[in-house]
């Protein structure tokens, strides 16, 4: 039997697996309608299923390229925060889980903050990365939101938060719960300066993340089909022992119940955001520009000088190199990577 196990089987496996891998990478199955979509078409469609319109999750990098004018933006490095404050361990150490998430995503934590213009309007985005521990919010994410708020104030820009998160990060216990009021404070900082605060709710926005900054937008936008809610559907089902109504906790359902302003398909997001921001910030067309709005492109370029620069083209699959100019910043994870699944 030896020759079979040692020789034939690995050979067969190699054959079988390589045969499987090729179509896997080239074709992706839509999780909603099971339609097979060619990968290039899927990317062209911004990861929206051409058959049923299902919006698949996208990572922060893709999102930023999609939203900012000409795909240009500048990421900022986020403050370092305490690691594993509770020395938490379940079946696995929290530090191990963090390490894995970091090597998987190439990022320090589940949020990325960038600035640029959207429809010519200055904007700061704070985008959750669901692939980093389910986008869960702990101290680092809270700090990220605060940094984004401060940046928006500093740049006289609108703040756009884009949650995609299961909720608070259990492994940081009470400190993750404290990110709820802290994120609310971030929102208040922006509102106090009369800057627009917009929330773009993406799949999923649940738990503690929904019950804080994500529900306090001047304008609440959601992507089609996004799951949005406080309690998990399973928990509700177990509590009331009934099946849930169709479409429960989906973006369209929330819109119907008055919790959102609009549900906007991915390919219209940039235009919608740009137009809305312009309506809020330029009440008189052509005049009354915000005092510091001197030639927007120039402003964003100048501001970018000492920070890592985002790459621009959507088709660049390779990680863009770290910007050397950011040398004086201690935090490292500035390399651009496509993190979505």
């Amino acid at each position, binding site marked *: 039997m030896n020759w079979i196990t040692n020789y034939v089987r690995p050979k067969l496996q190699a054959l079988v697996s390589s045969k499987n891998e090729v179509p896997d990478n080239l074709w992706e199955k839509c999780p909603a309608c099971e339609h097979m979509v060619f990968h290039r078409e899927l990317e062209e469609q911004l990861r929206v299923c051409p058959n049923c319109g299902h919006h698949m999750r996208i990572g922060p990098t893709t999102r930023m390229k999609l939203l900012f004018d000409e795909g240009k933006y500048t990421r900022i490095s986020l403050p370092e925060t305490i690691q594993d404050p509770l020395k*938490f361990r379940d079946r696995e150490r929290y530090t191990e889980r963090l390490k894995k998430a970091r090597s998987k995503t190439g990022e320090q934590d589940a949020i990325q903050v960038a600035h640029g213009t959207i429809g010519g309007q200055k904007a700061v985005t704070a985008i959750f990365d669901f692939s980093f521990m389910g986008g869960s919010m702990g101290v680092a994410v*809270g*700090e990220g939101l605060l940094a984004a708020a401060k940046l928006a104030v500093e740049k006289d820009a609108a703040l756009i938060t884009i949650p995609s998160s299961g909720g608070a990060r259990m492994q940081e216990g009470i*400190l993750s719960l404290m990110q709820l009021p802290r994120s609310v404070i971030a929102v208040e900082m922006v509102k106090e300066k009369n800057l627009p605060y917009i929330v773009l709710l993406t799949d999923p926005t649940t738990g503690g993340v929904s019950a804080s900054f994500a*529900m306090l937008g001047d304008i609440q936008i959601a992507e089609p089909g996004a799951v949005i809610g406080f309690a998990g559907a399973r928990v509700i089902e177990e509590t*009331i022992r009934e099946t849930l109504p169709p479409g429960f906790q989906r973006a369209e359902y929330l819109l119907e119940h008055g919790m959102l302003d609009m549900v906007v398909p991915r390919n219209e997001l940039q235009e919608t955001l740009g137009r809305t921001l312009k309506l809020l910030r330029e009440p008189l067309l052509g005049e009354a520009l915000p005092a510091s709005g001197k030639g927007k492109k120039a402003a964003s370029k100048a501001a970018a000088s000492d920070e890592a620069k985002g790459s621009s083209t959507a088709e660049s699959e390779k990680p863009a190199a770290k910007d050397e100019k950011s040398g004086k910043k201690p935090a490292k994870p500035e390399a651009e990577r496509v993190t979505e699944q």
Partner: protein
Amino acid sequence: MKHYLDFEKSVAELENKIEELRHLTSDSDINIAEEVTHLQNKAERELNSIYSKLSPWQKCQVARHPERPHVREYISALVEDFTPLAGDRLYGEDQAVVGGLGRFQGRSCVLVGQEKGHDTSSRVAHNFGMARPEGYRKAQRLMNMAERFRLPFITLVDTPGAYPGVGAEERGQAEAIARCMEISLGLSVPVVCVVIGEGGSGGAIALATGDRILMLEHSIYSVISPEGCASILWRSSDQSRDAAEALRLTAQDLDKLGVIDRLIREPIGGAHRARTETIRAVGQAISDCLKDLSDKDPDSLRKERREKFLAMGQKGLS
């Protein structure tokens, strides 16, 4: 019939023995009186030793003890002229949140808290202290009232969490909680919050963003219940004990983490064994805090409250 927790077995046995002895001896026998005193002392020592080293999981049970004093009991003992106020003016009245105007040590205040109820019918009426959006919106109304009339705002937190239900979701549970925090962080009157039993996640923090956050010694405050955490991270709710340890949800841990300002001692054997004493201690602590905050102007109250939350999460446990 007294309710004993499973780790109180030894105390239960002693106290039952004392009862038995008392019943047996209508013809008073001096030896038996001595024996009773002896047993009582023993029971007290036993309680003392159990309660001085409660595990986090045991604390969860003490915090949820059915005989632990609840919000309405605190209010009736500490507040004069309590005038309950009802309704959110939007949809309904949620009795999971109790609130109103009253006089605390001679001073008008607005008080709000989650009431769990003490028997079957009141537990159902108060929905076991699990508020729906209406409860949180009633709280918002009362926060705004406190602001308008410049009255201190006092909250007593005791909830397993916000209610998970279809209607609650449809009416914006998440928004209601978020808005509570937004409003209370912006108040320019003193805000004192006391976790008196269970501080269950978002449902608790909606009423716990104040200038001072206090906790009773055997109360708990957590981002998720140990049962919920165990079923997610350990994939089995049998591990609740381990989850309770890992979550660091005790008042002592929160004190070390700098999340709470003050820990209020409970009498030996927990709040449920000495309700009056416990309530008095909580009253004293609130009074101290209000005194502390009374000469602060509106701007510094707001500013310091914000700074207090911004400073959280700098230090961990060693």
